[in-house]
């Protein structure tokens, strides 16, 4: 049941486009932003969108478009690093568990996963920031921790499937130990899965960052982040709705983009994984 090329790219293209836009904006912001986001201008605050400030100005008179561009750095960076933590720690754990399937190490790792899953993520995030003080880094850690079991579980599940394939037997006949097998045979075959999950987690990371920042636990001022922009604007929604509107829309669009990209990649990279 091969999909027609049309439906194959239905998600991929718009997803990729959206993601590129936001990453582009983030990168661009290093070299150019319409206005300096470090400059406050109380007199110019909460202007509605106009020709000068395309998206208006915030409660300190900073240009919202510029803020969004700079904020993209933080939001994307936080999400990205958090996902990386999940992958770097989770995948090896999953591979290990799979190659020791059924034995105590596997048990241990999986129970560990359950344990982490058992904790209410947001509450723990709040605890962490309570312990180490709120900061982007701690937000990353908080989000990252909960990415680990996701990837560990995913990896183990997929790896188990591969371990039953005959080419693994062949590799063992060739006298390869489970580490080499995991690296040479398992990993390449679950890569697609990881990439897809990665993009999904990435989008979740952005949402998480927004959530944490909203309760004041994310990036600290003056560093702008989409979540903080929402948080700062929360008391002003009725006064100047655009302060909350634009950051929110940016979050929605970036998450949407990443999800589309994820589904798109799933369709494109590996028909066997396809949900559509």
């Amino acid at each position: 049941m091969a999909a027609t090329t049309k439906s194959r790219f239905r998600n991929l293209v718009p997803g990729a486009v959206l993601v590129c836009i936001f990453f582009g904006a983030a990168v661009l912001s290093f070299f150019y932003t319409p206005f300096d986001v470090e400059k406050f201008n109380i007199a110019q605050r909460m202007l509605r969108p106009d020709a000068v400030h395309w998206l208006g100005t915030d409660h300190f008179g900073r240009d919202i478009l510029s803020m969004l561009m700079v904020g993209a750095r933080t939001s994307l960076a936080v999400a990205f690093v958090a996902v990386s933590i999940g992958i770097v720690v989770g995948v090896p754990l999953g591979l290990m568990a799979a190659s020791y399937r059924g034995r105590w190490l596997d048990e241990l790792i999986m129970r560990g996963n359950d344990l982490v899953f058992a904790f209410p993520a947001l509450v723990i995030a709040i605890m962490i920031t309570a312990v180490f003080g709120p900061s982007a880094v701690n937000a990353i850690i908080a989000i990252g921790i909960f990415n680990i079991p996701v990837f560990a579980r995913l990896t183990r599940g997929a790896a188990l499937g591969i371990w039953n394939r005959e080419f693994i037997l062949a590799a063992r006949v060739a006298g390869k130990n489970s580490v080499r097998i995991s690296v040479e045979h398992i990993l390449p075959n679950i890569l697609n899965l990881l990439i897809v999950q990665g993009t999904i987690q990435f989008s979740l990371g952005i949402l998480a960052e927004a959530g944490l920042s909203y309760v004041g636990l994310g990036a600290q001022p003056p560093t702008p982040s989409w979540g903080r922009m929402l948080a700062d604007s929360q008391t002003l929604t009725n006064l100047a709705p655009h302060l909350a509107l634009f950051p929110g829309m940016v979050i929605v669009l970036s998450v949407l983009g990443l999800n589309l990209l994820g589904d798109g990649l799933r369709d494109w990279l590996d028909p066997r994984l396809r949900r559509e």
Partner: protein
Amino acid sequence: MPLLTLNAVAVSIHDTAILKNLNTTLDAGQVMGVIGESGSGKSMMALAIMGLLPQGSALTGQILFDDVALNELTEKARCQICGDDIGMVFQEPMTALNPVHTIGQQVIECIRLHQPISRAAATALASETLSRCGLPSDQFPLSRYPHELSGGQRQRVVIAMAVALKPKLLIADEPTTALDVTTQAEILDLLCSLQQEDDMALMLISHDLAVVASMADTVVVMKEGVIVEQGDIEPVFTQLEHPYTRALFKASDHTPPRTAPNHRALVNHSAQSESPLLEVKDLVVAYRVPGRGWFSRANTFRAVDQMSFSVNAGESVGLVGESGCGKSTLTRAVLGLMPVASGRILINGTHIDEGRHVLKQVQVVFQDPYGSFNPRHKVARLIAEPLNVLETQPTRRERDRQVVSILEDVGLLSSDADKYIHEFSGGQRQRIAIARALITRPALIVLDEAVSALDVSVRATVLDLLASLATAYGLAYLFISHDLSVVRNVTDRVLVMQSGQLVEQGDTQSVLDHPTHDYTQRLVASVPRLPEYAHAAIDTL
């Protein structure tokens, strides 16, 4: 007038033609055999009749059943006929049943779907049908779930669903391919008797000439979506007019030319030692099965129980037995992939766990040409992998040279070295598998159902290859298969295995012609045979 008529039926999926201009008829009460290799479109034809073609497929022409053009009916109207007047049995009994419904529910559903009778009545009918199909309700209550039944039993359930309403036509698509020989025989008998009792028309789709020949009145031979030949079975199978039919027959009973391995090849292996190449002594391989209940000790299940045999250099030994008899466990043990509970496995007199250098003497070719290669690696890397067991790794150039030469030995091109596996057909893949096995210059290759998954014609060529390699490299084979006919044709000696034990062994011919152990006898008896006339025909080829 015929019960089923195909008028210029053609099917294409996403604009690629799958079936081309099929015309054939099946009369009531008749048995039609459909013969063809994989990709011949025989299953697709069945699905077309049932209206179960995959999404995006387009059908032209007419499928007339009782003068009704099935393919022109609405889904609803068609569903009233399917399952009622037409029943179907599929190849994979393991997955053909809904795991979350009891077998009773599934049969009853089928009945009540088409007949407005009370649940009680339906239940009665269901249990009656099941016992007709060999699942008497005192041993197999309707409340059983599929996972509690064996493959053969599940297939009986599927059949029961199909015949519960005494359909006019039963379509059986490779109903026994996934089953063991003995089970296959039983199921075929069942189908046969049912067909006669209810005077159904039966469309029996199979790749196995013998199976078809033993049951069908008429036969249809298909190739790449076209009917190449059809007619009453006897003329077709005696005259063998069409070249393809003839080729099939030849291949199905192929005996590769086997010359004794040249001596130089042999000598360099079976090191001066007089001990046999492979010697298995009182081998026991056991699994721990977690005991039910709490502290009950995990009881062990002996998959291989006190087996002793040996394989000499250059010899080809068959190992036959049905699924679950411990064949594959034995294989793994011999390959050093499994801890041995007791007993010994010696290669040229040295114990296999004395290190890689011993293991390099033994290589393996697996059954599944698709599953046994890492799709992400290039052929060169795949073939070179076993070199890992050598004490001294060859240089990259040296490695590539070996790969190329091996590729040529197994009849592939040196250019294939940097292709990915998915670019090859099943037959080619098995050749690559063989190449992989050869690269360490082993003395013994374990062929684990190595040709079972291949079409007859391809299988023949692979068997030839194996034979010639045996000569060239002085190889010994441990040929594991459930297919006695092949074993008969390619092995010198045969070992018969049942539930972990070796029940009979000896010279292939004598064992298979005059089996002494009753299990062997049952095995041999249940192998479907081509009728005499066909044999006569083959001899004339």
